[in-house]
């Protein structure tokens, strides 16, 4: 079968466009360009209740994303949830007594971890544990408390 040059050029163009589309998808449309996976250190925090926090949820400080939640497990000894998060290595000067709370983005948005800086001179490092934590706000408990308080007030 004879193959003309223009056919080869068209096939080359097609394959090139296909790979360009794939490149566009991975760079512009997905988090590949934004993610800084691998370069970071892990810290742990124990929460009484994590609510609907998910793995890969952002960890932010002052509203800026500094890391991600990498694992959520249950500790059968302390009956608490262990949340492991990876903080990007460029943020390596966070005080060791920073506290972590589970916050909600907007009224119905997804949950994320907000860090508040402490005052210690020592910094968080691989394997540190955040001692001060505040659990997720569980709407049902809140409503229950509200009802209970209302009744006792009468």
């Amino acid at each position, binding site marked *: 079968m004879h*193959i003309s040059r223009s056919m080869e050029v068209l096939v080359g163009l*097609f394959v090139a466009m*296909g790979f360009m589309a794939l490149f566009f*998808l991975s760079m512009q449309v997905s988090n590949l360009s934004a993610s800084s996976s691998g370069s970071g250190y892990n810290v742990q925090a124990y929460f009484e209740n994590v609510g609907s926090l998910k793995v890969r949820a952002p960890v932010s400080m002052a509203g800026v994303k500094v890391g991600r939640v990498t694992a959520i497990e249950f500790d059968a000894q302390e009956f608490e949830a262990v949340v492991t998060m990876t903080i990007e290595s460029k943020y390596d000067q966070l005080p060791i007594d920073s506290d972590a709370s589970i916050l909600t983005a907007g009224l119905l948005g997804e949950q994320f971890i907000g860090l508040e800086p402490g005052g210690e001179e020592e910094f968080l490092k691989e394997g540190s544990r955040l001692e001060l934590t505040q659990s997720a706000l569980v709407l049902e408990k809140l409503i229950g408390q509200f009802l209970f308080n209302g009744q006792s007030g009468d």
Partner: protein
Amino acid sequence: MLDYFQRLGERSLSMLERLGRGTIFFLKVLMAIPSVLIRPRLVISQLHSVGVLSFSLIVIAGLFVGMVLALQGFYTLSDFGAEGMLGVMVAASLIRELGPVVAGLLFAGRAGSALTAEIGLMKATEQLSGMEMMAVDPMARVIAPRFLAGLISMPLLASLFTAVGVLGGHLIGVGLLGIDEGGYWSQIQAKIDFQEDVINGLIKSIVFGWVITWIAVFEGYDAIPTSDGVSRATTRTVVHSAFAVLLLDFILTALMFGDI
């Protein structure tokens, strides 16, 4: 009544027989692939007829699917004041589902049917047996290059479909509906995961490309060598590939995203 059961059994037996023949055929194609790799020009000319000629259809369809998704998504999302999420909705549904599936269905209709008709007609006009007579293996010369071309083209076409769809959504969302451009991209980048979404979508399109091309070349090769037989085989290609794509899509989605 007995007659009915007899026919039922016959039909299921013939279905099993076709499945078996198809599988053996697929193995034969696999064995013929090494001899194609030393003559890549055969694959290039098939890439032209399978891939390049489907290009315009895929791009136009992708553009319009993306634009419609943006319009419909905006209608629903604006009720919740969540128009900013439009980009995520368009991109996620395209990357995870619509890109591979719709591109697969279009590919089956555009390229799969052409493959079946071409191979079936080659068989009907005894070109395949003529090749065998000349000691040319039709598997290596005709079937395997087409199979490879389909396998290569489909993921590229699906990626093109998705990319153009996301751009179409951008066109409507940012251009017509007035969503913030930076928000469109940053929401997408925050939500779409490379491994979870892009790679899984790519795997889907590879699987669909494999099954569609397999069905198409097998139906052509297995067609009854009459004009009626070729026409039936072409119809079967489109119908069976559409079923196979939708069924496999369900299975793959359950495997990939089922735990979320």
